[in-house]
């Protein structure tokens, strides 16, 4: 018994940490999150279409793909939960259309053919009850017959599909059903399910101050948060660093003011210079205030591994630069069927640059294992390559988005890399867990991401007078996006925090074991089927209110898109593993590729090739991440 009391003491002393766990740095911890693959995918696919199309980054296009992502995402999130619980629902696609059609038939006037002429106030709960009934039926059949859910829900799919067609034709004589605006309750429910935000009606001229401020403050907060979680924190803070930190912060404010109050590239370079210097000074002040300095940084030592990667990386970046000058894009002729010369140039540049900077990052990572000085030298070379690449792009690109936005982003990347390596030279990196530092860091991280999201949201929701004069395309943001975000947030919380969420993982992972310890396995699975059916009802409402009419075939066959989105988001096909947030990102990736291919003016038939490639890449990446995560757990 002496042993165990000693162990309990040790636990209470260490405050949750455990000295036998190999320390995982903030970057390693980030990398093994199950959603990371989908998040990188979202950023990658967005960047790809932003670069190859004319207008993918505009508010109008964002509205386009978010609109598609919303209905797809609501279903993908629900389906991913069911898949985590170890089942499939092939009727989910047909169910969305069925609920919409049922609803329309309930409220359609009796005057023309068919329809019950009910109030919407009654039709909404009735159709919801029917949806719950369908979910319950699916769950009950699967549990009672012990047949695979694939077969049971395939049967439900055919029944629903037939009922939709049959009833629509029998009652209205047509294969599409329509209702008019005069049903009672329409004015109340229409804004709930199909309200829109007209961007061009909301003018906010000082929007960009808040946009830029939010972005920069958010980025600064994230940087501080990551440092807080990466370096060894001093036990007693050194106040000498505070004034330096203050100077940096003041410089940052000055940079924002200069950037906003002047127009034209000359002033922007001045602002960028102030920004760069103040970030360096401020972060250095912050670090000497809070972090433990390192003893010795060591001297430069380039191993053969580092030089190989460094050389290959620089060569690839050089190739990217050459591409941008050699391929003539002025005429933007069609090269072959789906691609233009402009598109080819961008794709080649992206491939070379992507490969080049990946190789340089590998070199930097290897250098880190040697010593901080070597890391600084390799990072400085990488930063120089980034700066060179930025100027090449500015010189060769016509489009203002490359000339300013990408240019600034690349310069900012070079700055971040340099500052980070200089900090690494001077301050000790953490080698053991520090829960207090992590807590503070995570709070700042959330605040920082919140600010960036706020900045992006206001930029999309409001116009300035200048933009109106330039006649930007009108964007209409539908309330369905709020349904998507809200539904995803609730489901993520349920999966991670509630007993039902825990039971969902358990019945998918090992149903017998779950049952033995008292988890109501049959009830949990039935409730999961009901969640999917409830989501289908919600999507049915969103579809019905958008156009006041629905085709009988609406939703048929989309169930596989839900499953693909869930799998792209990291949900395992065999159950027991996955995340709802990942499924939402998976839906965003799919919606972006559908809309992006149109924005890039490619033939839309190519979307299937694109989807196939994404699915394959996602599955491989998720497998890799899961293996990494498990290996990390085993250590």
């Amino acid at each position, binding site marked *: *018994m002496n*042993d*165990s009391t000693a*162990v*309990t003491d*040790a*636990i209470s002393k260490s405050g949750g940490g*455990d000295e*036998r*766990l190999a320390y995982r740095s903030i970057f390693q911890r980030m990398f093994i999150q199950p959603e990371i693959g989908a998040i990188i995918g979202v950023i990658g696919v967005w960047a790809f279409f932003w670069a190859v199309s004319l207008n993918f980054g505009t508010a109008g296009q964002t509205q386009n793909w978010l609109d598609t992502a919303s209905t797809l995402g609501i279903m993908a999130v629900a389906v991913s939960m069911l898949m985590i619980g170890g089942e499939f629902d092939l009727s989910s696609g047909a169910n969305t259309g069925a609920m919409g059609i049922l609803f329309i038939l309930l409220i359609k006037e009796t005057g023309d053919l068919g329809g019950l002429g009910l109030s919407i106030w009654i039709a909404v709960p009735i159709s919801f009850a029917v949806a719950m009934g369908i979910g319950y039926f699916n769950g009950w059949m699967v549990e009672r017959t012990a047949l695979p859910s694939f077969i049971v829900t395939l049967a439900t799919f055919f029944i629903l599909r037939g009922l939709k067609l049959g009833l629509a034709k029998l009652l209205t004589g047509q294969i599409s059903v329509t209702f008019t605006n005069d049903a009672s309750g329409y004015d109340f429910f229409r804004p709930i399910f199909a309200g829109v935000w007209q961007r061009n009606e909301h003018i906010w001229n000082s929007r960009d101050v808040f946009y830029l401020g939010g972005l920069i403050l958010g980025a600064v907060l994230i940087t501080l948060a990551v440092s807080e979680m990466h370096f060894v924190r001093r036990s007693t803070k050194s106040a000498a660093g505070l004034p330096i930190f203050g100077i940096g912060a003041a410089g940052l404010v000055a940079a924002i003011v200069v950037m906003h109050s002047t127009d034209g590239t000359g002033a922007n370079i001045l602002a960028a210079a102030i920004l760069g210097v103040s970030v360096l000074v401020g972060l250095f002040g912050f670090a000497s205030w809070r972090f433990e300095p390192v003893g010795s940084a060591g001297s430069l030592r380039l191993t053969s591994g580092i030089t190989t990667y460094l050389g290959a990386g620089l060569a690839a970046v050089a190739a990217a630069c050459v591409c941008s000058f050699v391929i003539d894009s002025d005429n933007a002729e069609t090269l072959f069927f789906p691609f233009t010369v402009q598109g080819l140039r961008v794709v080649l540049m992206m491939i070379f640059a992507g490969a080049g900077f990946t190789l340089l990052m590998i070199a930097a990572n290897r250098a880190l294992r040697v010593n901080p000085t070597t890391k600084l030298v390799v990072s400085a070379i990488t930063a120089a390559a980034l700066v060179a690449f930025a100027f090449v792009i500015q010189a060769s690109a016509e489009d203002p988005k490359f000339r300013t936005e990408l240019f600034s982003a690349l310069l900012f990347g070079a700055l971040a890399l340099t500052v980070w390596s200089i900090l690494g030279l001077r301050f000790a990196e953490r080698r053991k867990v520090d829960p207090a530092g992590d807590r503070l860091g995570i709070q700042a991280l959330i605040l920082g991401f919140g600010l960036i999201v706020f900045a992006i949201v206001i930029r999309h929701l409001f116009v300035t007078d200048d933009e109106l004069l330039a006649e930007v395309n009108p964007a209409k943001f539908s309330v369905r996006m709020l349904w998507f975000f809200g539904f995803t947030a609730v489901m993520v*919380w349920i999966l991670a*925090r*509630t*007993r039902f969420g*825990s*039971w969902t*993982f*358990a019945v998918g*992972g*090992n149903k*017998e*074991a*779950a049952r*033995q*310890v*008292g*988890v109501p396995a049959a009830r949990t699975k039935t409730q999961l089927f009901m969640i999917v059916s409830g989501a289908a009802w919600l999507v049915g409402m969103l579809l019905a209110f958008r156009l006041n009419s629905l085709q009988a075939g609406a939703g048929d066959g989309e169930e596989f898109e839900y499953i693909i989105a869930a799998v792209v988001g990291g949900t395992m096909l065999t159950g*027991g*593993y996955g995340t709802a947030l990942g499924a939402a990102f998976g839906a965003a990736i799919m919606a972006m590729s559908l809309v992006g291919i149109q924005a890039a003016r490619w033939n839309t038939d190519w979307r299937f090739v694109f989807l196939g490639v994404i699915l394959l890449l996602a599955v491989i990446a998720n497998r890799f991440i899961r293996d990494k995560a*498990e290996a990390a*757990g*085993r250590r």
Partner: protein
Amino acid sequence: MAEQNLLELDNISKFYGNIIALEGVSTVVNAGEVTCVLGDNGAGKSTFIKILAGVHQQSEGTIRLNGEEVSFGSPRDALSAGIATVYQDLAMVPLMSVWRNFFLGSEPTKSLGPIKWIDQGKAKKIAKEEMAKMGIDIRDTEQAVGTLSGGERQSVAIARAGYFGAKVLILDEPTSALGVKQSGVVLKRIVEARNQGLAVIFITHNPRHAYPVGNRFLILNRGKSMGSFAKDEITIDELTQLMAGGAELEALEHELAEATAD
């Protein structure tokens, strides 16, 4: 009787149709003691636990818990009477974390009005403490159970049964799938559970595992009880001999000679 036994089994028999699976088995189980049930394959060990765990009902005989006659209609009955069974397949979900597995089905919750959620801080802390009481210092309760070793998984299952108020802990062949070192770990856990005042029923076919930890030995052979002995009434050689029914005695003696040489 002056002192009352926690669990008493009197003349238990089980028939499946005309097949006699178990006949006339009697033994006692006490708090803070380990009762080992030994027998070769087909000796009736599985039938014996299934009756105790409430999966099957005995055809004849009586079970007394704290002196009162009881009958378990389902595994849930047995569990609520304080008899927890740790099966060989462990009842664990490999992809889930240690703390989630520990509390699976009985998660502690916090609530705000009708909204309830798992009290994660409390669950993680308790899981870690309970494992520590068993002498296992789990590194990280967020670790997936699938990444634990076989012995550690058994320890999670044993700690869980103890925490949820089991008075009698039935372990079904906990060492059979484990290596030598891992078996040692599990045997240590059994002793820990006993020291905490649990009555342990340890089912095994390995007398070398049973003898060092057991206080009482029930030997089954071909469905019949070969007797129930206290530790001072029997030696390990006699135990082995009874278990094998004298059949493969020479081979066993050989094996034991090697064992003593270790």
